[in-house]
């Protein structure tokens, strides 16, 4: 699976990248044409996060804020928070996004996923008054910046996953929502969740392998 460094460097110079050429039968949009971008352009969240990181860009931040802050607030209120606390916590979540913009890796997660993890940790901290042990970070330096093709694939995978979650049978979907928004203990969660996570997991696994390779 892992290409060696030399090959990857050549890949990086020959953009658009040849990643995904042919072996991804499920991808319907043609690569190398402008069409995959047109759909993403309205919501190119990774680019906006990058502008926050590189240029401390307040306009980019305002765009992210207007889309995500009301969603984070709703998430916190569904988790049992009153409106005042939810408002305060949401502002803190969005401030954390600004402060951690340099740590966001768009080849491993979508912006909505990243914001979800920040909001979830805030919920544990502020609502449950518990500590949240987090795994060791895998930081990526400027030498190991993600390939734009990988970033695009991750966005597409996220969209596909969101569709699959939306199309789950009602009973299963309610259970998933209860787990993520309410408090379903892990013993109430089935061993097999039935979520179609195989493809997105493989993509993230690949991104991790590249990162490990770059860190050596």
């Amino acid at each position, binding site marked *: 699976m892992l290409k060696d460094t030399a090959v990857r460097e050549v890949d990086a110079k020959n953009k658009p990248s040849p990643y995904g050429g042919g072996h991804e039968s499920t991808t319907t949009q043609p690569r190398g044409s402008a069409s995959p971008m047109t759909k993403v352009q309205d919501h190119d969240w990774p680019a906006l996060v990058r502008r926050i990181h590189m240029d401390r860009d307040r306009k980019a931040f305002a765009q992210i804020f207007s889309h995500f802050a009301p969603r984070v607030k709703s998430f916190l209120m569904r988790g049992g928070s009153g409106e005042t606390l939810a408002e305060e916590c949401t502002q803190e979540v969005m401030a954390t996004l600004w402060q951690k913009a340099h740590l966001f890796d768009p080849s491993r997660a979508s912006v909505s996923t990243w914001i979800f993890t920040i909001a*979830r940790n805030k919920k544990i901290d502020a609502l449950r008054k518990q500590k949240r042990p987090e795994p060791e970070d895998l930081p990526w330096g400027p030498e190991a910046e993600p390939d734009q093709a990988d970033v695009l694939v991750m966005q597409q995978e996220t969209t596909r996953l969101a569709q699959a979650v939306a199309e789950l049978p009602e009973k299963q979907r309610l259970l998933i929502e209860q787990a993520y928004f309410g408090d379903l203990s892990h013993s109430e969660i089935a061993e097999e969740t039935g979520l179609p996570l195989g493809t997105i997991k493989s993509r993230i*696994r690949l991104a991790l392998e590249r990162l490990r390779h770059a860190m050596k």
Partner: protein
Amino acid sequence: MEQIKHHLTDSLLMGYASGNLPEAFSLVVATHISLCDECRARLASFDAVGGALIDEDDTVEMTENALNATLELIARASSAPKPSTPTKGAVLPSPLQGYVGGDLDSVRWRNLGGGVKHAVLKTSSQATVRLLQIPAGAAMPDHGHNGTELTLVLKGAFQDEDGRFGRGDIEIANEDLHHTPIAEEGDVCICLAATDAPLRFRRLIPRIAQPFIGI
């Protein structure tokens, strides 16, 4: 990365991703993921489900001045948060070091008899977690079979009916499982063990004594 054969279950990963695990279990999960890229990727996919759900159209309007208030919050904050320091060469991955206050030499062990030592780590009360040190060739003490029990190997290895567990491997047991883990010859075995049946902790007895007591 270690060659890890025994991984986390989907229910633990989803519980961790959705923030529903007791702190003690979260610590074991975070420690395993620090050692296991396979489960790191699986967790990221469960996080992505949370991302998909939060990105739906369920919104609550922010107050009028919210954006400016947040920008002020950002301006007032000190320096950017640093990523956790990598722990290359350390026995304890960084989430665990946060609880111990350093690597293995900072652990305040207490003797349990028979060469077995433990150190309870302070977490919220729904579940308990501790480090266990078992001499090479000795049996693991019974740490409770009510509820769920997680045992993550950090150093050395143990064997039981389910196979061999080395560094990074996690054994997940519930009421049904009766196992007799024995530390491998050659090296002391150090594990991180958590259970959501805290009462059994006080009656901790090395397994060697159990044939006389029965389970």
